[in-house]
């Protein structure tokens, strides 16, 4: 996305916009950059995966926060409040993306993983899924696992990765994703299937089956 693109779209998060003024002495927006800038940036980056977009989203967030800081009035932690705004900005970003681009890439879906199956549709024996060890709760503590996952996510085509992120990382319901991105449910399922298949394969090769 172009720099500043997110700036044109700030509806829901900007719901809390009011005239700035009195709060200026208590809250210093510059301090936000130092105290919360990096966590906000990382949160955005892992979801949108492009530094410029993540930076834009942080900027939008802090600007909105500045405009609405009177309404904040310390009901929650400052960081929690800023993250709340950022989450709105991120879903706005995806909504906008859904309107601007046709979100399915059917061409690349045509011949799905043909090398994994024999023409009759069964697994090629040597390419069937391998046993995955260790269990999920064990790998959670291994930073190498997360690095591998990161690398695997980066290899997915962007739209497919976006859909996977919304569904599996954020846990957004299918119907909501469809309306967010203006795609049909069957399109969504095809894309998710593709993402899962590719990620599964990538993790199996680069993590579970790696040379030890």
């Amino acid at each position, binding site marked *: 996305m172009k720099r500043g693109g997110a700036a044109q779209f700030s509806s829901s998060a900007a719901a809390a916009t009011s005239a700035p003024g009195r709060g200026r002495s208590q809250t210093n927006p510059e301090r936000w*950059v130092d105290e919360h800038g990096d966590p906000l940036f990382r949160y955005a980056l892992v979801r949108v995966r492009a530094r410029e977009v993540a930076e834009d989203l942080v900027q939008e967030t802090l600007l909105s926060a500045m405009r609405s800081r009177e309404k904040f009035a310390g009901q929650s932690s400052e960081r929690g409040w800023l993250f709340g705004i950022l989450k709105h900005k991120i879903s706005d970003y995806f909504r906008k993306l859904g309107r601007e681009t046709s979100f399915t890439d059917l061409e690349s879906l045509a011949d799905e993983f043909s090398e994994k199956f024999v023409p009759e549709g069964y697994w090629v024996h040597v390419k069937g899924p391998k046993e995955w060890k260790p269990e999920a709760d064990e790998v959670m503590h291994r930073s190498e696992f997360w690095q591998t996952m990161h690398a695997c996510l980066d290899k997915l085509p962007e739209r497919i990765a976006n859909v996977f992120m919304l569904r599996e990382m954020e846990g957004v319901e299918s119907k909501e994703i469809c309306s967010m991105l203006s795609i049909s449910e069957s399109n969504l399922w095809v894309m998710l299937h593709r993402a899962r298949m590719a990620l599964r394969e990538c993790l199996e090769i680069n993590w579970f089956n790696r040379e030890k």
Partner: protein
Amino acid sequence: MAIEAKTPNPRPPDDTSVLQPHGWPRKLLVWIISEATPKCREVVRILSEQMDRKLPLVTRCRLRLHFVACSWCERYMKQLHYLRETARRFPEHADAADGAALSPEARLRLKQTLNNS
């Protein structure tokens, strides 16, 4: 042997289930099941769909039956859950994976923008 050639889904070698296709009755059973249920390529598509919506009872039964003869697809299903379980935790571990931070230029630009507005 005819059934051997047509037995598309022997259990993986490291599988210890009772339905290893040894001996012709079991091979025949595996063959019947694989004829009666969707092919693996279709099964994995259905399994992915199952992560996003509840499937009709009939479809779920056919999947179960398929797993009796094909533990590759059963494994695939477990791995989809593994993916989900780990993906949910991915954002909180992103620091470990990345260690990303705002660049000094971005930090400066942010401060300037905030000051100017």
